[in-house]
């Protein structure tokens, strides 16, 4: 993983390939790599869909090695949704395969002069870029089936669906899983629109003939990996709960805690929660011959993913994640698990962010476009997005644009990006993260829910203001670092609670690269990444006034606890200026 592949999609004649050394970007991976390239090379005031923006893909520092859990891939660019810097990451196979092919990053630059659509094939012999207009407006599942026919089943793909081609703000970038299904998405911020603006439909990766990346110190690496896996297996969340129920085990607890945004953030608890809970979802999967315990990439030992079959026992979609079940479920007043699974399939197929899409439909329901609880109407609205009708184009603009078009006041976004599945009034730590993350409202940027609700990494009362600033700050720093390693963020449940598992992670990095990183170095790495991202946003015109939640969160009391978001603006400003 010692080179960067740059493709100028706007070069005269044909796209031009350049392969360079790592140079200034040596030692970076994942989010660290994407944010470094974007902040250094992309003019912050450029239009996100213009030739000046760059679309960066980077596996993590440990991706492609024998290390467990190292299959996350990051994509980065200036976001068409937020107007700021964006990093979105996903599991699936591409991180491991791209890293084994030796690339620390792929950078798509420029913009084709016409509307020709390209596919990029990369294997051990090199790179082949071909125009292929037969792929136009293919949804992801059909596209990947075609790639399988053409290139065989040893490939991993990074692709956009119809939403990306239409350059919608909700468009995601799909990554294929172990079964070569386009189910793992870099979802947030409209990254799919930027890939679409480069005229690239799909990147096909084949690492046949390449070997696993070798660590500098093999024995030390092997020992660290064993301790790391033991730690993950020992922790009750990563060893038991996530494999048994998946992420959707959170539906019941958030609804019980009064922090489950319901009917477009009007209430904090959903009467239908038990019908769409992780417990019910896992049971349905077992009954129908699906599988509630499945890894999204080779080397995953947590296996929080799953396979969701329809009533007749046929594959419908991967196990919908908690955020998806919430966005399309309780937030829209829908308590029909099969309808939510269908929405998950449609989102993956058209290539849209399930969080932004669900939040947008809830805003549309608030506007009276459909009734809360009407699953059929929600399915039809997502189909409009896939088709690109005028209504679909509006909804494809995301929650903020839909709110403006239809005159809705209650629009739960920060920096234009929709909030995920935790109400910031009743889970105040995550509210601090939503407000201050350079990414816009993003739960993964500093998952205070762990400590506020799940009592992982200690306990900070979710309903009180005390301790939330420091909690969010520390988690945002740690997350920026973890997002650079290629590690799945869920390792944090074990790493936060077990110092020896954190040490095993450090030892993996040290043995891989021949380094002597300490906990302090990890903090430094996280701080540096956040500083680069915030610097980009500042140059793009963001001020501290953008680090705020919409006003209604401090004015409308949330049931059942009758709480508002009451963390002071000057305290929010201390997250990055302690």
């Amino acid at each position, binding site marked *: 993983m010692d080179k960067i592949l740059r493709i100028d999609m706007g070069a005269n004649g044909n796209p031009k390939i350049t392969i360079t050394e790592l140079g200034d970007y040596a030692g970076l991976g994942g989010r660290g790599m994407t944010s470094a390239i974007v902040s250094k090379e992309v003019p912050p005031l450029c239009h996100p869909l213009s030739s000046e923006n760059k679309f960066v893909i980077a596996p993590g520092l440990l991706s492609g090695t024998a290390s467990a859990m190292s299959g996350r891939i990051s994509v980065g660019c200036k976001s068409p949704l937020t107007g700021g810097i964006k990093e979105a990451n996903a599991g699936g196979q591409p991180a491991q395969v791209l890293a084994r092919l030796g690339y620390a990053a792929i950078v798509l630059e420029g913009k084709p002069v016409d509307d020709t659509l390209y596919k990029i094939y990369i294997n051990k012999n090199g790179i082949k870029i071909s125009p292929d207009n037969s792929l136009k407006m293919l949804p992801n599942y059909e596209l990947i089936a075609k790639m399988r026919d053409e290139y065989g089943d040893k490939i991993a793909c990074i692709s956009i669906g119809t939403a990306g081609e239409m350059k919608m703000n909700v468009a995601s970038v799909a990554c294929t899983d172990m079964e070569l299904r386009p189910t793992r998405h870099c979802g947030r911020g409209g990254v799919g629109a930027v890939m679409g603006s480069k005229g690239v439909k799909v990147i096909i990766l084949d690492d046949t003939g390449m070997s696993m990346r070798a660590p500098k110190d093999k024995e030390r690496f092997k020992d660290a990996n064993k301790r790391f896996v033991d730690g993950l297996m020992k922790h009750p969340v990563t060893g*038991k709960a996530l494999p048994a*129920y998946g992420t959707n085990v959170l539906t019941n*607890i958030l609804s019980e805690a009064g922090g489950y945004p319901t009917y477009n953030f009007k209430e904090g608890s959903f009467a239908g929660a038990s019908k769409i809970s992780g*417990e019910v979802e896992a049971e349905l999967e077992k009954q129908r011959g699906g599988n509630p315990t499945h890894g999204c990439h080779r080397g995953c030992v947590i296996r929080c993913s799953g396979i969701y079959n329809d009533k007749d026992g046929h594959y419908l979609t991967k196990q919908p994640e908690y955020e998806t079940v919430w966005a399309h479920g309780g937030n829209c007043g829908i308590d029909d698990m099969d309808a939510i699974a269908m929405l998950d399939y449609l989102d993956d197929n058209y290539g849209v962010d399930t969080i932004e899409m669900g939040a947008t439909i809830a805003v549309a329901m608030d506007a009276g476009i459909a009734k809360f609880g009407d699953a059929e109407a929600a399915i039809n609205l997502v189909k409009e997005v896939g088709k690109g009708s005028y209504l679909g184009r509006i909804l494809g603009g995301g929650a903020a644009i839909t709110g403006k078009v239809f005159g809705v006041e209650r629009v739960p976004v920060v920096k234009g990006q929709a909030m995920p599945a935790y109400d910031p009034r009743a889970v105040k730590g995550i509210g601090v993260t939503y407000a201050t993350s350079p990414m816009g409202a993003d739960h993964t940027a500093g998952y205070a829910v762990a400590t506020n609700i799940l009592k992982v990494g200690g*306990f900070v009362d979710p309903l009180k203001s005390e301790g939330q600033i420091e909690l969010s700050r520390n988690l945002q720093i740690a997350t920026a670092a973890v997002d650079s390693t290629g590690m799945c963020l869920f390792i944090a*449940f074990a790493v936060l609670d077990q110092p020896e598992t954190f040490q095993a992670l450090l030892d993996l990095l040290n043995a891989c690269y021949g380094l002597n990183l300490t906990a302090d170095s990890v903090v430094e790495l996280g701080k540096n990444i956040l500083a680069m991202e915030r610097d980009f946003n500042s140059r793009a015109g963001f001020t501290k006034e953008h680090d705020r939640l919409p006003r209604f969160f401090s004015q409308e009391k949330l049931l059942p606890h009758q709480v508002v978001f009451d963390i002071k603006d000057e305290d929010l400003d201390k997250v990055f200026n302690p």
Partner: protein
Amino acid sequence: MKITVKLFATLRTGRFDEKVIQFSNNITISDTLKEIGITSQEAAIIFVNGRHAEFDQVLYDGDIVSIFPPIGGG
């Protein structure tokens, strides 16, 4: 007095999802756990009426107690 006890995830196995249980006055969460045969290690997260609670909290008539094993996601 009557207490509603809700169990989640693995705690349901061999027990129940939700049950109204009659107790004498002045019992604590620890007493309730003993009554339904759940250890303090198993009960990682406990809410009383949607608020985090500790083992020694005293319960009152009509309280809803929600008990979770260690879980995570997101």
